[in-house]
């Protein structure tokens, strides 16, 4: 039977099988598994049926802990149920997995295996998560390629029903979950043929039902619990056999035969590797190469079923001739004798050997090693190094490979020059920007080549860690044979550079082969381009004898209405040059792909792309290569030579894309990194930047307030400091009675850090009277300004900071004189969250400590290489940490408890030491008022004096007090995160923390979706909004978190939207911080996931408030003491209809296009809800809180 050949990624392969085999699917987003849930939700929304003809019920839960609870319930109630997860998510499922397995409940969890956060979070792939579930009783089945994912998923779904043992089917996060590859698709009929329906009937029969009542899940005592645990043994004993039967069944259907342990290599091998996951593909490729070409006696065991571990099957799979074995684990267990697979293999082989009857004459030498943590590359060179290690008489044990461990010397040396890429395989690398559509076009190319030709195809995509101006590198392989190269391209026959300026940022041609082809998108003509290339690039082109093509894709894109998206144009060039398909056919296929990709979005976008294809070829030119490099253009250093050594030597390597070269000694032992490092990463990503027109500026400060990247700075200073100002440095007289005659004022733009979002231009309230399109800040091309403004910004930074004691922080103008201690983050261009974060850092940064929930804010706040959290001239600044996604409120509370304890202890010690340090100083310190900047400043002075005195007192107490004396100065604890954390996964903790009464400040950056993982629905999502996991529109309204918090009565609560009322925003933040108890601030944060023009993000905020969807308020429990109503509404009743707000945003509007009837219904309900809620708020705000009347007092008494 001819089955469809499709090119899909690993997540889709797994989700396809899971969906077809399930009735209930419980999901929760976590990278890199989110795609599986997203597809399931989208399929269900479009009415796709499972193999029994019904649409699975797909539900999002509040956490993975919630998802697995729902899975457990659905299974107990007799439905075929699945879920998808990874990493921390899988860890949250563990408690319930014991239950599910303990009750012998068939299910399959599909896991895109990912690192676990230790000293740092990583979204990338290894087996740390699945290895943490070994003890749960789940079977663990590994897939190492995209085809295997589809096959193993089907095997798992059958085997779980046959064996009653629940399964984790896992594959490597990113390398497999996100690799696009051509595979043979199992048809729904195939999947149906895999399943014995009688087994499903058995599941139904064992389900909880009042028609056949029983209880399950009892509590047991010492008398029987143990025996109960032993009842399952026979099922685990039988499980491997059932899995093999499932594998055999699949072979019967498809011809692809798998075994629990598959051996590849020389039948008489002496040295073998045992491993599982995607790395085994690279090992397989290497084994084939070394056995065929070098006749090495080596082999490879691919482990399929890791749990239950079948000793017999493993030993049967290993050739008798084997003398040495390297067992590779993609995980790390500090303190263990070895990693899990190693230990199991050692136990299996040794146990069998000691029992007698082993096939081995002598016990093979077994060593273990770690590789590939967090998707670290695992290449043939590394595989060879492992086999070479086994050649040694005493092979290194407990080794690592792929890194340079210069501390404990575990690493094996390998020769990166050892490359085995098959010459018959086409290998292309494409450098682009996220915004130019390069990856999308490459995915289309893979589909074309994979599905329209005989070729096998593989695509893997490497993304930036920044969310703005991010670069992408696509790795594409095509060939006549299946592709096993599960590593990045090491030598490329074709390199496309889709953005000219990337030539200065990357060594684009480093990996091109001699005689390869280089395609460049150039804003310069074919005659000019050569002279515009950096010298190094010219040299590489000449030395490597490259064929060099250029196209001015920018102009073609502009002329055909494609804007910045050069994707289709560059794709057309690629096909035209590479000759993978005849030109005519290629064009036809590209157009077919365009129709498929864009067809649902209307004819015009299709036509626009067609026009781009048609105009491309006439603009594509091959350049004749001169004999010598003549360019004077040098590639600038990535990091300024003025940067601190650690930034230059270590972080700089990461910035250059050479982080793999950092040795173990270059890394901190406990995850600690210096603050203030984004300032050294001048990214120059803005095409246009704001230029200040001081002649009309009114010094309101709004531009600096809203700047998401702290690229607009304001200072007021004495004009005497202007003496050495650069010629183009701008200033004006400082306006306002607080300034003396000599004070001047400057707004300075950090043009190299600006992302060009334009929010400052939008918010500027001033218009030029002669030309109303101009404001006090106007956008202008960055390049001509770069040099002068760099000098101006440097000069500006050296001007004195405005005295914090003198600033009126309650005003926008005043607050913006404060130095931002959060700057130049990697957040999206025009981000709606970071202005709030930055404002908090300005107001309290020099004494704040931040607990940051995992999400966008933890990524732009703490994703290497650099951090935007910075320090002031006194060396103070925010101390920041990210614990987990789910525990952030508790994490912050812990900080508060710790700070308070140390403050208490310091006070106790000071009381004891008062006679020695001086009673008056001690008294002043202990009774200090620290409610104002002056109060804080004075206390710091006192503490400094105290510390000096303590240094002179050599007692135990003084030593102890010295260590905690700084805690005598007030500290501000901030708990920050998004709505996914606050409304969903972290809500239980948040609720507990606000109920604790402790003095913490919680800032919820509410984007109404899980932004960081790609826009999944949260309980904050508005009714009728389309989000992932809510493809048919969210049917329920937004959870009113503020109202829930207000119910406690002791929580300060504010709802703010900077774009609607900036003064209220500042007031709320100041009041929240001043409140000596828990505070909750819910901040409207416009987001790229809303589908809006980010430059108009502040307008969205305004409309949300004007429609009363987002009422602004402050609820201050302090007011009650004064007999006042604690709730103050800061916005007005709706002045516009809800639709006038929501239909400006794609997240809502798209529902009117995809599910028009549902959109209508939900709009009506949502409008009703908004008005009702406003009415409720109004009534609450009008309640009488005056002190009890005499009558009431009498009643009380």
């Amino acid at each position, binding site marked *: 039977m001819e089955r469809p050949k499709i090119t899909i990624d690993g997540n889709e392969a797994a989700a396809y099988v899971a969906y077809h085999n399930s009735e209930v699917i419980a999901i929760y987003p976590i990278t890199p598994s989110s795609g599986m849930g997203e597809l399931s939700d989208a399929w269900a929304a479009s009415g796709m049926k499972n193999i029994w003809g019904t649409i699975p019920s797909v539900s999002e839960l509040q956490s993975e802990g919630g998802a697995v609870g729902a899975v457990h319930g659905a299974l107990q109630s007799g439905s075929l149920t699945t879920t998808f997860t990874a990493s921390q998510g899988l860890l949250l499922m563990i408690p319930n997995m014991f239950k599910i397995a303990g009750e012998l409940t068939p299910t399959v969890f599909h896991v895109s295996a990912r690192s676990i956060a230790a000293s740092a979070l990583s979204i990338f792939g290894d087996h740390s998560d699945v290895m943490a579930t070994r003890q749960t009783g789940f079977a663990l089945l590994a897939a190492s390629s995209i085809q295997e994912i589809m096959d193993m998923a089907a095997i798992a779904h059958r085997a779980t029903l046959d064996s009653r043992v629940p399964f984790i089917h896992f594959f490597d996060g990113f390398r497999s979950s996100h690799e696009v590859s051509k595979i043979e698709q199992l048809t729904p009929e195939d999947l149906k043929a895999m399943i014995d329906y009688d087994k499903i009937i058995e599941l139904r029969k064992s389900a909880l039902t009042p028609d056949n009542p029983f209880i399950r899940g009892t509590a047991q005592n010492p008398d029987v619990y143990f025996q109960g645990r032993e009842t399952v043994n026979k099922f685990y004993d039988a499980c491997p056999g059932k899995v093999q039967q499932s594998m055999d069944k699949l072979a019967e259907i498809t011809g692809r035969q798998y075994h629990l342990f598959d051996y590849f290599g020389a039948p008489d091998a002496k040295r073998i590797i045992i491993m599982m996951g995607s790395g085994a593909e690279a090992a397989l490729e290497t084994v084939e190469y070394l056995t065929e070409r070098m006749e090495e006696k080596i082999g490879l065991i691919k482990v399929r079923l890791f749990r239950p571990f079948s000793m017999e099957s493993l030993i049967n799979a290993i050739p008798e001739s084997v003398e040495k074995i390297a067992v590779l684990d993609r995980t790390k267990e500090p303190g263990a004798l070895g990693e899990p697979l190693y230990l199991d293999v050692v136990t299996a082989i040794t146990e069998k050997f000691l029992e007698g009857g082993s096939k081995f004459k002598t016990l093979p030498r077994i060593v273990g090693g770690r590789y590939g943590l967090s998707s670290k590359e695992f290449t043939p060179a590394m595989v060879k190094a492992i086999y070479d290690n086994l050649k040694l008489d005493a092979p290194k044990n407990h080794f690592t490979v792929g890194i340079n461990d210069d501390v404990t010397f575990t690493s094996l040396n390998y020769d990166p020059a050892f490359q085995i890429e098959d010459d018959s395989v086409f290998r292309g690398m494409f450098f682009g920007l*996220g915004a130019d*559509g390069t990856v999308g076009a490459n995915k289309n190319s893979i589909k074309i080549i994979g599905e329209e030709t005989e070729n096998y195809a593989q695509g893997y995509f490497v*993304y*930036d860690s920044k969310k703005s101006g991010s670069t992408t590198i696509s790795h594409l392989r095509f060939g006549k044979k299946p592709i096993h190269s599960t590593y990045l391209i090491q030598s490329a026959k074709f390199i496309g550079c889709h953005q000219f300026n990337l030539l200065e940022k990357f060594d684009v041609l480093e990996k091109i082969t001699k005689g390869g082809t280089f395609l460049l998108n150039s804003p310069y003509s074919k005659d000019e381009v050569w002279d515009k290339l950096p010298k190094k690039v010219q040299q590489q082109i000449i030395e490597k004898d490259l064929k060099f093509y250029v196209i001015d894709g920018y102009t073609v894109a502009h002329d055909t209405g494609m804007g910045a998206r050069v994707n289709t144009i560059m794709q057309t060039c690629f096909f035209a040059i590479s000759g993978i398909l005849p030109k005519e056919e290629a064009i036809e296929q590209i157009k077919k792909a365009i129709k498929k990709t864009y067809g649902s979005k209307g004819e015009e976008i299709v036509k626009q792309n067609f026009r781009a294809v048609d105009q491309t070829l006439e603009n594509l030119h091959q350049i004749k290569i001169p004999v010598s490099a003549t360019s004077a253009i040098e590639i600038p250093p990535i990091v300024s030579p003025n940067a601190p050594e650690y930034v230059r030597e270590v972080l700089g390597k990461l910035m250059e894309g050479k982080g793999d070269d950092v040795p173990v000694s270059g890394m901190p032992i406990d995850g600690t990194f210096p603050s203030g490092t984004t300032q050294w990463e001048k990214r120059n990503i803005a095409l246009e930047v704001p230029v200040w027109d001081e002649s009309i500026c009114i010094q309101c400060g709004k531009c600096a307030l809203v700047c998401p990247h702290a690229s607009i700075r304001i200072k007021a200073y004495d004009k005497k400091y202007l003496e050495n100002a650069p010629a183009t440095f701008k200033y004006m007289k400082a306006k306002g009675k607080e300034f003396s005659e000599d004070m001047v004022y400057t707004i300075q733009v950090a043009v190299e850090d600006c992302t060009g979002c334009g929010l400052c231009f939008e918010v500027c309230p001033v218009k030029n009277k002669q030309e109303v399109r101009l404001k006090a800040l106007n956008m202008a091309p960055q390049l001509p300004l770069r040099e002068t403004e760099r000098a101006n910004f440097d000069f500006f930074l050296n001007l004195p900071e405005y005295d914090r004691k003198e600033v009126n922080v309650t005003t926008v103008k005043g607050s913006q004189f404060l130095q931002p201690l959060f700057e130049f983050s990697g957040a999206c261009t025009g981000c709606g969250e970071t202005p709030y974060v930055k404002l908090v850092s300005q107001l309290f940064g020099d004494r704040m400590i931040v607990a940051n929930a995992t999400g966008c804010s933890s990524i732009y706040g703490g994703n290497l290489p650099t951090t935007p959290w910075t320090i002031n001239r006194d060396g103070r600044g925010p101390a920041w940490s990210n614990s987990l996604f789910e525990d952030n409120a508790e994490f912050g509370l812990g900080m508060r408890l710790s700070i308070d304890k140390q403050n208490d202890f310091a006070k106790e010690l000071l009381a004891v030491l008062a006679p020695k340090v001086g009673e008056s100083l001690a008294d002043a310190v202990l009774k200090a008022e620290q409610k104002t900047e002056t109060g804080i400043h004075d206390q710091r002075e006192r503490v400094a004096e105290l510390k000096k005195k303590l240094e002179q007192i050599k007692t135990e107490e003084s030593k102890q007090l010295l260590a905690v004396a700084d805690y005598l100065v007030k500290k501000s604890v901030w708990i920050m995160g998004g709505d996914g954390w606050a409304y969903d996964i972290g809500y239980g903790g948040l609720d507990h923390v606000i109920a604790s009464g402790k003095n913490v400040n919680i800032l919820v950056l509410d984007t109404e979706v899980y932004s960081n*993982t790609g826009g999944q629905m949260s309980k904050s999502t508005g009714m009728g909004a389309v989000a*992932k996991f809510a493809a048919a529109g969210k049917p329920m309204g937004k959870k009113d978190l503020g109202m829930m918090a207000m119910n406690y009565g002791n929580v300060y609560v504010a709802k703010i939207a900077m774009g609607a009322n900036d003064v209220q925003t500042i007031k709320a933040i100041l009041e929240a911080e001043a409140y000596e108890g828990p505070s909750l601030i819910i901040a409207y944060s416009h987001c790229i996931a809303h589908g809006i023009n980010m430059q108009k993000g502040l307008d969205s905020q305004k409309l949300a408030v004007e429609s009363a969807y987002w009422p602004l308020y402050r609820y201050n429990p302090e007011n009650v003491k004064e007999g006042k109503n604690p709730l103050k509404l800061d916005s007005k009743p709706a002045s516009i209809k809800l639709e006038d707000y929501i239909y400006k945003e794609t*997240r809502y509007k798209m529902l009117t296009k995809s599910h028009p009837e549902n959109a209508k219904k939900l709009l009506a309900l949502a409008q009703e809800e908004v008005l009702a809620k406003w009415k409720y708020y109004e009534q609450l705000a009008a309640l009488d809180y005056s002190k009890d009347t005499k009558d009431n007092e009498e009643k009380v008494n």
Partner: protein
Amino acid sequence: MDLTTNYLGLKLKNPVVPSASPLSQNVDSVKALEDAGASAVVVYSLFEEQINHESGEIDHYLSYGSESYAEATSYFPEPDEFKLGPVEYLDHIAKLKKSVNIPIIGSLNGVSAGGWVNYAKNIEQAGADALELNIYYIAANGNLPSSEIENMYVETIKAVKSKVKIPVAVKLSPFFTSMTNMAKKLDGAGADGLVLFNRFYQPDFDLNKLEVVPNLVLSTNWELRLPLRWIAILYGNIKASMAATSGVHSHLDVIKVMMAGGDVAMVCSELLKHGISRVSDMVSGLQIWMEENEYESITQMKGSMSQRRVAEPAAFERANYMKALQSYKLFI
């Protein structure tokens, strides 16, 4: 009494036709218009911008920021199908056709000949009985001579006529140097009707924000005079049907339009201001007036006060202006 009229070859039960407006956006209000006595309905316009840009816009916002960052390779689920403006419009026409018995006139609004005119065919296929082509062009380009603009109108109508079999009316702006000549050209190009005139919404200035703002002002009764004049002048000079639009607020206005030579009087502002029931007021008012004034049919009055049939044809030309001035002087 015979209130019927013939417009674009369609026999209508009376000359009161609601013009393109939000009232045609849902089936229920179109049914209400029919119940109130409207003889046909011009459906709200499908705009060239909608056809050309909506598809690009939805693609832009759905893909914006995608494939840039490993954790979020996209931000939205992508449905298999979108009902974009044009598709929605065609569905709506089809739905209206199923729901009411009166003729449904589709409306295309654009500024130039281009791909969008292909939608005329789609509108016909959706079941529209006729099509109104609203060529909304502001001659702001100083390099474009008037002859080219006129030619653009002619070519557009020709292009549309070549694609459809249903009758096509053109809604015109009053800003032609030689209106009669232009009307004749369009007549010659195959236009089945002229709709006079398009009321361009004139932008206003917001002095607080120093912004140019769109400003929707509903028509007033006096605005009828412009179409009235031109219908009276054109009557008998062209084959095409004529509709008056702008300033029709009462049955008396309908009568004036008929007497000038119009075939239908299109009404919009009055309905937006005072409700759909005004249609029945107009129809009954028309009937009563005709009874009181002993008119037997609309045909009888049609064109009775056109330029050709009045005692003083010059009244529609410059003399009328002079007369107005003279009467104005009486008051000062």
